[in-house]
């Protein structure tokens, strides 16, 4: 269902909704850039062409989540923090980020498993018939997903780092969205995708005129052509695991981890006890301590192994387990890498013909 709505009407409606919902959206912060924030005044909502520096992921898998509160020494009982209940609307989410959330669902919100013991022994030497990946639903992530309605915004001006189309994401893709907005003359065209979306914006706007529809279709048809960066994503990278290619491409990496923190699909985390509270915090495969054993053993001792893990997790392992690449082509890791490492280029130019 496609309708058109003036900017004024849209923002008025958002203002009304803010009585019942927490509104999350991009906001331009002076001297900093665009960031997703909890929006208190609807005028602050930035719905232009620019991209938020951090992905919307941070409202679902928070940089740090409080999981448990411990008792004082020898007091009984460990308490669980209860996930917040307030319903939210995230406005201005880009198609790549929404797709990223769908990918995260397969890790943190897998189909429920009924038995308490994780898996029956698969039998060494045999392939496990169990579902790939985790079988545990994470209450915190799942709750954040359930309480949030996603209102997307189609991309009108992808930049030189964007390569979503190479990964099956469209600048006007609706995967993971409840509503999708398209910027048009004087306002938005609004596409209602789910019942949840209908619930908040269904009564709004008027039907698009034939002319407007035609115009929107022609704009939409051209959206994908706006992307300059196109990469070839191989089916499997298995043949180049031991290649010295990884040495070469990881040489300039400074192991800062910005690529993992800003990625809409990176989800590796650490569990940390801070005095009486257990926290879950972002972690990254580029950090040396990520796999360091207490014994001093480290299965990924150098940047080569660590960077290779990042590429393989995204373009090989995740695909084996879930059938999709763990990358949506948002370009953040390229845009913000301090040493200009370009994962798109690295995947595109991987010397697949070279055998192990």
């Amino acid at each position, binding site marked *: 269902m496609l309708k058109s709505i003036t900017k004024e009407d849209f923002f008025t409606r958002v203002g009304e909704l803010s009585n019942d919902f927490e509104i999350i959206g991009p906001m331009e912060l002076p001297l900093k850039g665009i960031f997703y924030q909890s929006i208190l005044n609807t005028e602050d909502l930035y719905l232009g062409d620019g991209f938020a520096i951090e992905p919307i992921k941070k409202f679902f898998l928070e940089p740090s989540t409080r*999981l448990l509160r411990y008792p004082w020494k020898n007091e009984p009982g460990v308490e669980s923090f209860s996930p917040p209940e307030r319903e939210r609307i995230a406005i201005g989410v880009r198609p790549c980020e929404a797709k990223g959330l769908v990918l995260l669902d397969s890790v943190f919100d897998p189909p429920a498993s009924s038995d308490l013991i*994780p898996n029956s*022994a698969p039998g060494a*030497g045999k392939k496990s018939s169990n579902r790939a*990946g985790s079988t545990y639903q994470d209450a915190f992530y799942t709750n954040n997903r359930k309480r949030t309605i996603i209102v997307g915004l189609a991309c009108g001006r992808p930049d030189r780092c964007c390569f979503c189309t190479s990964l099956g994401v469209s600048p006007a893709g609706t995967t993971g969205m409840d509503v999708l907005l398209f910027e048009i003359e004087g306002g938005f065209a609004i596409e209602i995708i789910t019942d949840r979306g209908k619930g908040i914006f269904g009564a709004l706007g008027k039907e698009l005129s034939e002319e407007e529809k035609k115009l929107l279709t022609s704009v939409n048809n051209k959206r994908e052509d706006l992307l300059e960066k196109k990469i070839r994503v191989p089916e499997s990278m298995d043949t180049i695991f031991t290649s010295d290619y990884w040495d070469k491409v990881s040489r300039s990496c400074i192991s800062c981890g910005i690529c993992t923190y800003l990625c809409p699909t990176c989800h*590796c985390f650490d569990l940390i006890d801070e005095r009486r509270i257990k926290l879950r915090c972002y972690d990254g495969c580029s950090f040396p301590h*990520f*796999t360091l054993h207490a014994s001093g053993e480290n299965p990924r001792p150098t940047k080569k192994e660590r960077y290779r893990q990042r590429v393989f997790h995204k373009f090989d392992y995740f695909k084996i*387990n879930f059938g999709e690449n763990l990358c949506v082509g948002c370009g953040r890791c390229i845009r913000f890498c301090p040493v200009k490492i370009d994962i798109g280029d690295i995947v595109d130019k991987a010397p697949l013909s070279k055998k192990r």
Partner: protein
Amino acid sequence: MKNIYLPHVVEIVDVQEETPDVKTFKLKFRDNVVEESFDYRPGQFVELSVFGEGEAPFCFSNSPTRRNVIECSVKRMGQVTEALHEMDTGDTVGIRGPYGNGFPLEDLKGKNLLFVAGGIGLAPLRSLINYCLDNRKDYKTLTIVNGARTSKDLMYRNEYPVWEKAKDTSLHLTVDCQEENWTCMVGVVPKVLEQIKPTCGNSVAIVCGPPIMIKFTMPTLLKLGFCEDAIITTLEMKMKCGLGQCGRCNIGHLYVCKDGPVFSYSQLKDKNFQF
């Protein structure tokens, strides 16, 4: 929805000093209902937490067949184990689990079993050995090869007389270098295996020890005639969540915490040891 990180509170009811740097903790659930329902297989593990210090994975070192407590053997190594070693009977810790696949008990039935352990690697094997002894008719001969750096580092010494006396069971102890008053074997585990020449017919070898021991034991076992499917090992890896989510313990697309920690040699070889 349940908080998957919420541990069961358990009380330390006994602490056994195994070696200068390894202690075995006997843990009892505070909640009887949990104790009744908590079930595990040899080879699985728990995330054990010292409140305020952190969590670390430890395998069950006792057999589920003779359990009124949970036993975990802990080597003093890092922050969590350091804190654990400071604890005493009456203190409480948390455990969540069991996680992982455990040993393929069904596949081992009717086989001769060769247990190869190095140092604290005997912990998960002790669970399996005692399980086999308690289901003796299901398994054929049990050969236990247990190595340690020095005789002081040999684990579970009070089990040895029982294992030696058990039917169709043999125990071979070895230390790396000759010591005074040492009457058993001398030499690293692979060398000792070559001397013992365990039968490879209808046999499965179960190997657990430090990475260096595993590395050199595998070729020896292959040379002795064990096929790649008949060598299984249980791996150590840094595992934070145990749930298959935190993303660090993978070997290729397999997660050690969920798809392992028990793997066959052929599985690891197929994966080209993609750490």
